[in-house]
C-alpha cells in the first residue's frame, strides 16, 4: 500500500491510565477528502493530535507515505508535510493576521517562498488581505477559521487535517467553509476532516470512517454512509 498517504494501524492512545482509542486503523489516499465522524468524546480529536505528534500512542503505527512518524516530535511531523488545524483553531491571537500566515510558512521547506505563498493565500482568502495588520484575536469566528486554514495551507502540506472547522460558526459561514474545503480539494490538497456536521462532511468526503467510543464502527464511501440507516438514526437525527 505504498500509495497510501496516511496509514494508521491498530492505534491505541490513553490519557494516563484511561484509554481513549483502542486499535483504530484507517487510511487516507492521496488527493482524497476523508471524513472522520463520530459522537462527542468518541476520540476524533485524540486521533488527530496523535497523528500530528501532540500525543504519543501507546501502541500501533502511523505512516506517512510509508514512513513511520511514531515517536517524532510535532515540529518534525509538521515538516514531513502534515498541517493540523486543531480544535479551537490554535491561532496566535495576539499576533497579526499577516504574522500568523508567515508562521504558517515557518518550516524550511516553505519559508523561502513565503511571498508567493502569501499571494496565493490572499487570492483564496481575500478577506485576510484586508485584515492583514489586524490582530488575529480581533477577527470574527468565521474569519478566524479561515485564517487557521489559510495558515495551514501556507506550508503546502501533503495532508491537511481539520478538526471541526465548522464548530461555532453560523450556517452561512459553514456553507462557505465547506465550499472552501472543496476548492482546496480541487487544487489537489488531501484532507482529513473531522466534523460534527456529519451530513455535510459525508457529502464532500470521498471516503469516511465512523468512530465510536474509541473504536472504528463503520467505514465506506461518503455516499454509502449517508445512505446507511444506522448512520441516519445515530447521527443525523433521522427517525425511522
Amino acid at each position, binding site marked *: 500500500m505504498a500509495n497510501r498517504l496516511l496509514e494508521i494501524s491498530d492505534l491505541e492512545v490513553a490519557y494516563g491510565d484511561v484509554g481513549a482509542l483502542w486499535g483504530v486503523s484507517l487510511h487516507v489516499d492521496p488527493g482524497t477528502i476523508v471524513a472522520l465522524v463520530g459522537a462527542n468524546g468518541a476520540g476524533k480529536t485524540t486521533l488527530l493530535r496523535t497523528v*500530528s*505528534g*501532540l500525543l504519543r500512542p501507546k501502541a500501533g503505527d502511523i505512516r506517512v507515505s510509508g514512513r513511520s512518524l511514531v515517536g517524532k*516530535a*510535532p*515540529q518534525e511531523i*509538521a*515538516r514531513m508535510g502534515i*498541517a*493540523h488545524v*486543531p480544535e479551537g483553531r*490554535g*491561532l*496566535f*491571537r*495576539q*499576533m497579526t493576521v499577516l*504574522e500568523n500566515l*508567515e*508562521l*504558517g510558512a*515557518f*518550516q*524550511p521547506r516553505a*519559508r523561502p517562498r*513565503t511571498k508567493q505563498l502569501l499571494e496565493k493565500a490572499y487570492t483564496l482568502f481575500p478577506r485576510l488581505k484586508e485584515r492583514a495588520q489586524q490582530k488575529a*484575536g*480581533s477577527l470574527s*469566528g468565521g474569519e*478566524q477559521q479561515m485564517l487557521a486554514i489559510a*495558515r495551514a495551507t501556507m*506550508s503546502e502540506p501533503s495532508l491537511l487535517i481539520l478538526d471541526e472547522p465548522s464548530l461555532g460558526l453560523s450556517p452561512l459561514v459553514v456553507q462557505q467553509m465547506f465550499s472552501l474545503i472543496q476548492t482546496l480539494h480541487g487544487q489537489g490538497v488531501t484532507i482529513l476532516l473531522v466534523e460534527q456536521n456529519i451530513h455535510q462532511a459525508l457529502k464532500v468526503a470521498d471516503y469516511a470512517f465512523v468512530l465510536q467510543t474509541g473504536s472504528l464502527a463503520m467505514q465506506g464511501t461518503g455516499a454509502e454512509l449517508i445512505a446507511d440507516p444506522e448512520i441516519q438514526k445515530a447521527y443525523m437525527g433521522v427517525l425511522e
Partner: protein
Amino acid sequence: MFNLPPPEILLQLSLNGALGGAMYGVAAVGLSLIFGTMRLIFLAQGAMIILAAYFVRALFYGLGIDPFLSLLIVVPVGLVVGWLIYQGLFRKAAAEEDRNVSLLIAVGLMFLVQNLMTVIWGGNTAGVVTSYTATGIELLGVRTSFTRSMGFLIALAGTGLVMLFLRKTIVGKAVRAASEDMDAATLMGISPHRVNAIAFAIGISLAGAAGVAVATTFPFNPFAGFIFSLKALVALALGGIGNVTGALAGGILLGLIEAYVQFFISGGWTNAIAYGVFLLVLMFKPEGLFSRPYKKA
C-alpha cells in the same frame, strides 16, 4: 496632609526613580522572554546579573577594559552562556514538561552562582570605581549621575533590540508564537527547544547588559541578586507577563514607586508597598497595566 515638595524635588525623584527602575526593567525583559516560552520563573536571573557585574569588574581591574566598553564582550558571552545553560540544564526538564523541576534547577543554579561568587570574590560588597563614577550630568534641568543615565540608555537599547528581533524577524515571531501557544507553534514546525534556547540566550545576554549597569552604579555583593530577581518579577507583573516593552515600563514604574515611597513614607516600607502593588496587579489586572483590554472570544 503634607505639603507637596517643590517641583524640582519631584522631578529629581522621578528621574532618579525612573533611571534606577530601568535596571529592573531589563532584568524583567529577560524574565519575560524565558517565562514566555518555558513558563519558567527563572529565579536565578538576579544572580546572573550580579555574576555579570563581577565579570565586568574583573575585566576592568584585571585588563583595564572600560565597563561600558565591556558590553561588547559581556553581551555576546551572555548569548553563549544562555544557550549553554538551556542545553545543559533545562532542555531535559523542558521536554518532560514538569515545571517543578525547571523551577528547582533555577533555584539550584542561583545557589551555585551565588556561592561560586562568594568563593571566588569573597562575600564583601564590591564595586567598580572609574574616573566618571562620581560625574554628574544635567538632564531635564536636574542633576543626576552619569552612570545611572548610561544604565538607562543600556536598558532602552537592550529592550529596543529585543523588540526589533521579536517583531521584525521570523525567528523572533516564532518566539512570540511559542510564548502564546506552544502546541500551536510546534504544529507550524517550530522546535520548542530552539525557541527556548533563544529565549535563554537573549535573557542571559540582557542579564549581562544589566550587569554592566549595576556594576557602574551600585555596590554589590554575591547575594544581591535574589532581591533583583524579585524586583524584576514585580516589574514583569506590572508590565504584563509576556509583554516585552511592558516589562521595561513596569521596571521604570517600580523604580518610581520606590523613589516616591522612600521619600514620602519611609525606606522601610518600599518593599511592602512594591509587593502590595504587585499582588493587586496580579489579582485585578493580570494582563499588566500597559496592555489594552483585550476581549476574549
